[in-house]
């Protein structure tokens, strides 16, 4: 009997996987060339990427930074590369970027919008990130009064007295609560504040200003422009539209027929018309709707209309969140004995708003992008300024560099907002 054994007695060493299945080649085979169709797609994709990049990259980086006019730019291009097309003239951005950011705001006062922007970041930080110091909330509280003062300037008494109106309302409510009951005290407090704002703030501010004139140099609205204007409109519309939108959504969901009808009518009307028609209303009609002789500036009118516009969209987003809550949540809140506002505040809204975060943020992004529409009614937002810069004989005929710069800045803002919404969704996710 031979000692030939047909059964292997020792283990073979493990073989390395085939080179086509691991590493870069394996990855490429799995992700790029897994079939003839995918291979064709990959090659088409590579061609498209090459086509785009071969045009954009030289244009972007082989460019002219130092020139004072488009013609000078072209001369430099001609001297350097022997052609004028295919190279960007970033000199226009270098010369005009300040204008694209601030419009015609007086240059010695640039610190004011910059400070307002920095304060804005401080003010929204505690709202956006739980890690931010809680003390920042004080900044959030005073920001609505400080921001207009910084931007428009004027006497400090105006914003102080407006803030005092809130305090008056608050203390009136506190003081009257034991005497006349909750509802009556609330109504009286609101009335007191409104009367204070409408009739007393103006004369009082004037009087105080003549006694002790503390203030900043006023800046008229006509000088506002550039990204400062876009951010101003965006922030005000975003800030005001969320509370108004929540109220509208609650009205639309309520059992009160008339309240519901008013809310539905408002929301559907605003959502049914384009923003540009509302801006026409702001620029031509709003003065007609108000008492004779009322004159207030175009930016304020635009702010009002954009806020109304954003509120209607916000209301629909919040309504979606309210509708998505299971009925048991409403019934549970009722069975705990909470009244309407308590159950909204403690049970319904926290969940509904959480569900609607993606919608809220995309409404914010939409509103911020829509601020460019004000250029159509003649305000100098970045797009309006681009036209103004082109009207200058030095830069007549320059398009792509300005558009690229504006698009880049908008992209930064909107993209970071959408990333933030994803972060917030992850943070608030309570499921496993």
């Amino acid at each position, binding site marked *: 009997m031979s000692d030939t054994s047909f059964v292997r007695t020792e283990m073979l060493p493990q073989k390395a996987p085939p080179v086509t299945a691991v590493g870069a080649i394996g990855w490429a085979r799995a992700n790029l060339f897994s079939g003839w169709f995918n291979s064709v797609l990959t090659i088409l994709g590579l061609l498209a990427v090459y086509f785009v990049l071969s045009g954009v990259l030289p244009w972007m980086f082989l460019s002219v930074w130092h020139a004072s006019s488009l013609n000078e730019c072209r001369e430099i291009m001609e001297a350097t590369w022997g052609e004028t097309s295919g190279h960007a003239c970033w000199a226009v951005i270098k010369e005009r970027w300040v204008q694209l950011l601030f419009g015609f705001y007086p240059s010695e006062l640039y610190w004011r919008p910059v400070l307002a922007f920095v304060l804005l970041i401080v003010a929204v930080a505690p709202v956006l990130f739980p890690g931010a110091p809680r003390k920042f909330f004080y900044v959030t509280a005073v920001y609505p009064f400080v921001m207009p003062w910084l931007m428009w300037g004027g006497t400090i008494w105006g914003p102080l007295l407006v803030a005092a109106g809130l305090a008056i309302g608050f203390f009136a409510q506190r003081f009257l609560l034991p005497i006349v009951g909750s509802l009556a005290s609330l109504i009286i407090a609101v009335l007191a504040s409104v009367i204070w704002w409408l009739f007393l703030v103006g004369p009082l501010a004037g009087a105080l200003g003549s006694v002790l004139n503390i203030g900043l140099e006023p800046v008229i609205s006509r000088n506002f422009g550039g990204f400062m204007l876009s951010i101003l409109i965006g922030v005000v519309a975003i800030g005001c539209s969320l509370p108004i939108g929540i109220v509208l959504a609650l009205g639309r969901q309520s059992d009160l027929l008339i309240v519901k009808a008013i809310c539905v009518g408002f929301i559907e009307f605003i959502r049914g018309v384009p923003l*540009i028609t509302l801006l026409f209303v702001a620029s031509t009609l709003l003065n*007609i709707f108000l008492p004779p002789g009322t004159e207030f500036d175009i930016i304020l009118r635009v702010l009002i209309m954009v806020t109304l516009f954003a509120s209607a969209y916000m209301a629909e987003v919040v309504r979606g969140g309210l509708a998505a809550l299971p009925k048991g949540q409403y019934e549970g809140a009722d069975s705990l004995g909470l009244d309407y506002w308590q159950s909204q505040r403690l049970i319904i809204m926290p969940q509904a708003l959480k569900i609607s975060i993606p919608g809220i943020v995309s409404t914010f992004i939409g509103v911020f992008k829509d601020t460019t529409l004000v250029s159509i009614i003649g305000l100098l937002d970045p797009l309006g300024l681009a036209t103004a810069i082109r009207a200058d004989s030095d830069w007549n005929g320059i398009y792509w560099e300005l558009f690229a710069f504006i698009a880049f800045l908008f992209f930064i803002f909107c993209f970071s907002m959408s990333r933030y919404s994803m972060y917030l969704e992850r943070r608030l996710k309570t499921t496993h």
Partner: protein
Amino acid sequence: MTTLTDPPKETFRLSMLIYDTRYRSMTIQCVALIGFMLLAAWIINNTLVNLNTLGKPIDFGFFSEPASYDINQRLLDYNSRDSHLRASFMGLLNTLLVAALGCVAATIVGVLVGVLRLSKNWLVARIMTVYVETFRNVPVLLWIVLAMAIMIESLPAPNEFRGDTPTATMNLFDSVAVTNRGIYIPEPLFSRSLGNLHVLGESSLRFDVSLDLILLLIVLGASIFLIRRNTARANAIQEATGVRPTTWYINLGVLLVPTLVVLIALGFHLGYPELKGFNFRGGTYMRNSLIALWLALSLYTAAFIAEIVRGGILAISKGQTEAAGALGLRPGRIMSLVILPQALRVIIPPLISNYLNLTKNSSLAIAVGYMDITGTLGGITMNQTGRELECVLLLMLVYLTISLSISGVMNWYNNRVKLVER
């Protein structure tokens, strides 16, 4: 022994209007209604007083006055002697034209991008992500003016097509001319035409209906009816015998033959654009502003639609595909019978609101000089006549009507495909 006492007799007190939940809602509603009516009355009163001061009471008479401005892209006949109403009507048709073109293009691109973004191909998925993020995060107005700038700056002028050695040539076998003034494409012509039907005589809303087109539509409709009959017959045979008769060649024949016969009978041919003088003549002309608006709106909206489509497909759990496969369905049928009907339910409501957004965004045409309803009624007519109130309110009414009708039709469709729950 206990006696039943009557419940305490309720006397109505005024304070119950506030503190009794049975009456409180009535109180709140009355207050809201009164407040709303007071606000409306205040605004209307202010408006009337202001308009009286300005000396222009509300009056729609200006609509019958001659518009005396030209509309460079129009679907019907119009000249500057026509009335403002006719001009607004042209604008409305232009709005509907760009909205319809935009919705179709945005849907096609959007669905394609949405599906490709889910592709297993890494490179293609990344490219589509970049496309979606770029277009979604930059204002649509910027895309519109950018597209217009590209049209004007980088396309050849008509005179570059001229001469013995032209620097530009026409595309697609000399049938399409792409110039910086717009795009000229071949137009359908009938040498033995049946003529036009003039509707509404000489009024401002007059329009012509091509009898050729009506005939074609009737023939096509009849063909489709026959095809459905044929398919129903095939289904009946399949259910009875288990064998499905082949239907495709009959269907194809029924669809094509009558239409071709009618086209030949009417003498169908294409009219090609030709360079005459300083510009092209003949063919259908699509102005550069229309093309720019169309491109920008559809690419912008397509980015949103892509996300909706992607979300809709991702919302269908993998178990559905596997279960359908376990039933023995082929991949094509899995898609058309199981995945798509369910995904459509998720996709359609946001798709509707994106169509609405596109229609409303088409009002930005005013930025590139395309004469839509905003450019005519809300632009030149308003500036010429100085009737801001009438023009803006009518403009809003028109958009409101368009929006409500689109959402009405789409909601009806949505209700049809909606899941019927117990």
